[in-house]
């Protein structure tokens, strides 16, 4: 049988994921994936690895380009990919939050006549607002979301925070926590059947590594 195809996101999660993999039985102690290549099929690797943009990892899995993949829960919530979520890797931990300027209290915020919220996660924001029964404009931005309230472009932001340092430096505070976020192992709906034993084996080994932390 062919090797499983594993999608790993580039960016902040990549190194942590590679450290976890290196501790799994049968994996080389260090995988050098630092070239510009995006597909790795080395014989020493138990999986075929593809490096994907963090936002795309779960999409590759959903459409079957990868059998399994690692992806942040924030992306899974935003894109609602139809995949199996099998394991919490316990890395890349942060919170999905809504934050407002330090000067704005909970009461003041929810009593504003009209709200505008800046975010990289328009779908999550829309759902959060719907659950709360609030109407607001959503301003979809690509980065440096914290700028928006400072410049008066938005009343609040919906984003992920880990330490809260960026928030503090931009005079923002957490208004409410929306959901905890961490890296997840996901699997394609069909691969989990056609490659069941291989995926199950991978999950068990990875689980072992995580529990030994």
């Amino acid at each position, binding site marked *: 049988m062919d090797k499983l195809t594993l999608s790993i996101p580039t960016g902040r999660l990549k190194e942590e994921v590679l450290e976890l993999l290196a501790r799994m039985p049968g994996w080389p102690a260090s995988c050098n994936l630092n070239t510009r290549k995006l597909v790795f099929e080395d014989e020493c690797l138990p999986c075929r690895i593809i490096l994907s943009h963090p936002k795309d990892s779960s999409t590759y899995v959903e459409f079957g380009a990868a059998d399994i993949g690692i992806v942040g829960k924030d992306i899974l919530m935003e894109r609602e990919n139809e995949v199996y*979520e099998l394991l919490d890797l316990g890395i890349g931990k942060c919170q999905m939050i809504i934050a407002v300027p330090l000067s704005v209290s909970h009461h003041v915020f929810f009593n504003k006549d009209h709200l505008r919220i800046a975010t990289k996660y328009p779908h999550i924001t829309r759902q959060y607002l719907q659950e709360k029964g609030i109407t607001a404009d959503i301003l979809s931005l690509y980065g440096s979301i914290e700028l928006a309230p400072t410049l008066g472009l938005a009343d609040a932001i919906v984003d992920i925070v880990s330490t809260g340092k960026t928030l503090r430096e931009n005079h923002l505070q957490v208004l409410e926590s929306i959901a905890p976020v961490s890296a997840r192992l996901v699997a394609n709906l069909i691969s989990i059947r056609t490659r069941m034993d291989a995926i199950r084996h991978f999950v068990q080994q990875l689980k072992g590594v995580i529990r030994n932390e």
Partner: protein
Amino acid sequence: MKDVHPREIRVRRRVEGILQTLFGSWGYTEVEPPTFEYYSTLEKVIGKELKERIFRFVNREGRLVCLRPDFTTSIVRMYSSKLTPGEQNCRVFYDGKIFRYPASPFRTESELTQVGLENIGVNNPSVDAEVIALAISALRKVGIEDFSCDIGHVGIFQGMMDSMGYPDPLQEQLKTIVKRKDFIDLDYFLTLHPPEELPMHSLLEEFPYLRGKKELLGEFQKKISPNRRFQEAFERLSRIWDILADFGLEKYLFINLGLIRDFDYYSGVIFEGFSPFSGSPLLTGGRYDELFGVFGKDHPACGFALFAERLIEVLQQSGPVKDDREKTIILSYHPSLRGEVFSLSQDLRSMGMMVLISEDSGGEELLRVTLNGRLIFTGIPEWIALRETIKKEITNG
């Protein structure tokens, strides 16, 4: 929204034709429910997740109507007043579009072609097996060989719920989590609400991997304390398996005890066909004995639907797809040959060829004959020879 271009529609029509012939040869007749349904018809039977994906609007009388999100509900409505209990099986099939808003904000497809069938009136393992055998045969007939068919039973998950002893709201919550296939959330849930029978926790964790051949039934039975739901499910699955094995279809079959279907109306066996070349199932189906009850009648029924677009995707990925367009003859002729060319082109068409004719008064040659874009001949002697051959072919039948 999606345009369908000539090549794809040609392949799809051919696939639909094959399926219609197959279903017809097993005694199923075609029906066509309306594109619109009153929303109140569907509201009673469709789960919460799918409700949000229905195209709904208000008609002139102010009633809420919708575009059909599936065929089964409409067919049940059609037949609930027609059938009398105890009547022989009623076998029907359908072929048409269903409409649903995309499942995620990043998907665009909102109409799908479903070809499927319903076997109404009898509840026994041999009817289940007939329907599954037809599903397998459908995939083979359209030219897909590399596929499997997973069979499961709603009684497995229900039996597990019975053993866990949760009150209704928690049962609903658990069902939503399992349908979402979020096994991390499931673990949190089970830790927060430990089930009455503890092996259920580890069994639910194993849910994605409860797939195998017939032996799996025995292995699973050893891990659980029996209850009525489990018992019924095991007996039924085991008998269906034996019948399909006698049909010689065992190699396509898998028992999948972790199978869950989107529609809440299924009440017995459920099954899915899929191929490694598609990320989604090619067909889904099952037994829905309680659906007629919603419309005030009591008839058991079992059926399935194939997703035509996915079949074509698989056909295209697993090799070149036969395309009838490859036999095109172009006859380009001088006006003096008009009558003769017309009558010959009719003969060629009746022999199943695709013939384009084009009058060309400015050309140097009297006639140009092209087959699949390749020039065959331009001379009159060849033309006369071709005409004679065709005449002979036609008289010989």
